[in-house]
């Protein structure tokens, strides 16, 4: 990336309209996803040399300076955010020990497994979602173990993580766990029941409390013996990193809320198929929801899921965002805005669906100061479309990340 930007600076005076020129996006309908979420007609976004947005507004207010490369589109939005994915870990081929890095079943609780150590940015599915307009993903260890590992947040143009801080928005975003049978050990391994799952989690978190207490007592200059597991969970108990709990059944959701109350960590509910039975409780706990894909399959723990869940969470005033989730077979990844689109058919207002994979997703993930809306100073990530971005027949016609055009494929 560095070499590219340097090249851009060097070439700029010579050939101002080259691929490395600064980009201006001009859209018949521009969705900045700010304020009342209404689009601007014939809106313009100027992308700065530093990869950040310079200006946003109607053409009269934002003239395009000479030398900018103008990308025109019917519709432009902030680059989409997939608020919970496994792309880059759960690869296209679905071959164990080859490209399936999303779940390690050797122990039930392994929060020390880092997403940054498991990510393959060159997996074809990363390109697939990028070319459809997704610029940021919250990805990492999948549901399927009591505590499967860490997640992270990064842009879809990152091919390899050589510097965890620079190459990601959050190298350690959340710890991912699962309640209910989907999180059981299997093959006689613990946990084998719901009660055992909670007992194991509580026991582990009490240990972490002890660890945190010990760390606080250290004299100046003293350092604690590193413990990957306890250190990772200390981040959770200290409120720096949320615990993401995948729970589909109402009693598993209730158990997650109970655990949150006991230990006071930041909880993010995931999947939450039966959340419609506990709207008041979830709202009262101030817990946001990563709603299951609208097209998730309604079997097993999800047999009572409804396509109206996003609409109901919205009506109840519970913050939520859309996700592609995890798929064990086909399609190996879902596409987050396809899931959002169907929620509109089942009662969610259109602009709220768009927010659920842009601005609201960014807020839920704690990255709204960087991405998710089109405002001066934020990172210049945009997706361009030849129609309503949520309609199946619409194509994504261009993708910009950090002010650089990363795709002009018509997808």
């Amino acid at each position, binding site marked *: 990336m560095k070499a590219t930007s340097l090249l851009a600076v060097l070439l700029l005076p010579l050939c101002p309209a080259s691929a490395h020129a600064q980009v201006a996006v001009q859209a018949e309908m521009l969705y900045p996803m700010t304020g009342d979420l209404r689009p601007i007609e014939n809106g313009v976004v100027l992308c700065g040399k530093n990869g950040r947005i310079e200006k946003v507004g109607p053409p009269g207010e934002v003239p395009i300076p000479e030398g900018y490369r103008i990308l025109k589109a019917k519709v432009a939005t902030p680059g989409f955010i997939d608020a919970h994915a496994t792309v880059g870990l759960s*690869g*296209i*081929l*679905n*071959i164990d020990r080859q490209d399936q890095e999303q779940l390690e079943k050797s122990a039930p609780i392994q929060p020390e497994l880092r997403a940054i150590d498991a990510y393959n940015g060159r997996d*074809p*599915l990363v390109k*697939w*979602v990028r070319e459809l307009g997704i610029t940021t993903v919250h990805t990492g260890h999948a549901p399927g173990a009591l505590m499967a590992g860490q997640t992270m947040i990064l842009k879809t143009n990152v091919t390899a993580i050589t510097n965890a801080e620079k190459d990601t928005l959050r190298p350690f975003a959340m710890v991912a766990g699962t309640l209910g049978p989907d999180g059981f050990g299997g093959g006689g391994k613990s946990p084998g029941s719901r009660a055992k799952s909670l007992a194991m989690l509580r026991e582990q978190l009490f240990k972490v409390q002890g660890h945190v207490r010990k760390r606080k007592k250290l004299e100046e200059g003293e350092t604690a013996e590193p413990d990957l597991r306890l250190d990772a969970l200390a981040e959770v108990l200290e409120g720096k990193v949320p615990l993401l709990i995948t729970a589909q059944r109402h009693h598993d959701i209730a158990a997650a809320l109970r655990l949150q109350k006991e230990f006071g960590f930041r909880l993010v509910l995931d999947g939450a198929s*039966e959340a*419609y*039975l506990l709207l008041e409780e979830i709202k009262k706990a101030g817990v946001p929801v990563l709603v299951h894909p609208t*097209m998730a*399959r*309604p*079997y097993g723990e999800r*047999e*009572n*899921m*409804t*396509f*109206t869940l996003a609409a109901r969470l919205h009506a109840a005033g519970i913050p939520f965002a859309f996700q592609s989730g995890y*798929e064990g*077979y*086909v*399609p*190996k*990844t*879902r*596409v987050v805005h*396809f899931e959002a*689109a*169907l929620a*509109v*058919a*089942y009662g969610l207002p259109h602009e709220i669906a768009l927010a659920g994979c842009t601005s609201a997703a960014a807020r839920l993930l704690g990255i709204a100061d960087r991405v998710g809306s089109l405002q001066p100073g934020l990172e210049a990530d945009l997706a361009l479309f030849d129609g309503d971005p*949520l*309609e*199946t*027949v*619409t*194509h994504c016609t261009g993708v910009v990340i950090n002010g650089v055009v990363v795709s002009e494929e018509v997808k």
Partner: protein
Amino acid sequence: MFSSLRYLAPLATLVAIAVASLGGGQETPSGLTAYVGAHIIPVTAPEIEDGVLLVKGETIAAVGKRGEVVIPEGAEVIDLKGKVLFPGLVCTHSHIGKVQGGDGSSPIQPGVRVLDSIDVLDSTFEKARAGGITMANLMSGSGHLLSGQTAYLKLRDGKTIEDLAVRNEDGSMAGGIKMANGTNSIRGSGGSPGTRGKSAALVRAQFIKAQRYREKMAKGGDDPPERDLAMEALVEVLEGKRVVHHHTHRHDDIITVLRLKKEFGFKVVLHHVSEAWKVADEIAEAGVSCSIIYLDSPGGKLEARDLEWKNGAELEKRGVLTAFHTDDPINDSRWFLRSAGLAVRSGMSRQKALEAVTIAGAEMMDQAGQTGSLTAGKKADFIVLNGDPLSIYTRILETHVEGKKVFDLDNPEDKLWAEGGFGAGHRRRVSGCCFTK
């Protein structure tokens, strides 16, 4: 690609009905319903603004513009202004109803009928109706080279498989046969093949055996061979009475199916056909049809790595008869219309994409004379939509099979199947009394 003659047959029926009406002296035309004011998409004829669909009993009596279709006195008139009328959807490949085929005992089991396994009260049937599907080909899986006889079903409101079955002329239940090649059917144990070469050899050996059986049967005489269920089914395949529905993904596996078809002369529909775009010329030349699937991303297994959305467009360019399928539960039946949207997104024409969820599938199941379009004389299999079939925001409001409403979004119980919610995974009649949302 469709034989246009097939579509003329129902016209004769229309004329017959018209003549009967003109004949006078007929009793009040009870059992007549006129759906008036909808935008009608007949699929095999131009779209009609402000149309009339006249249904008599199980059958479409007339389709046309308001004013041009005479609505007989006594007909019930239903106003559908602002709605869209579309043929019932046809899914050529579905696994609803907990359908099963052969077991693990051998890779080729033609004697097994899936109709003996299907639970027609399962919630997946209700969900398929909510998805607008009026006819489906229920198939066993792809873990065998040949896993059983498939069942063509109309999604009538019935209690038994007999109530739902599509019938052959002799009254027997209609269906094809499910075959597969490539990775899924290569298991390397329990008599299953370990390679592609062995897979083809096992299939060829069975068909050669069936050819001998057929010759013996044809000879007749005093000493006919013992009844052999497997051979009987394969003879039906050889005689073109039973269509082969062949799971296949990779380009070389597709070509293998075409080679076997050439050797044994069976009628075949290629299913999934992930790499159709690589061998589209060969598929077109072989004159076979394709039932393809649209997935939101490629991969999930090596064979589907190169699956491309452009398959539909590439097949259309070459005139290949192309239908879509849900492969439910791979794609839930309630999202079937989305396939047409993805096809159009990737270069297929609107017309061919709409045919691919209706008439093309009916053609592949030899039922195009009965269903698959809104055509006078055909069965009244249709859905009522609140918008264009290609829009993601469009909802299916009603599904009608043979003139009878089998799904109504206004009915709370049906709404549960359509949208999900507490109890949506349960069968209708077992717990239908006590759902709360």
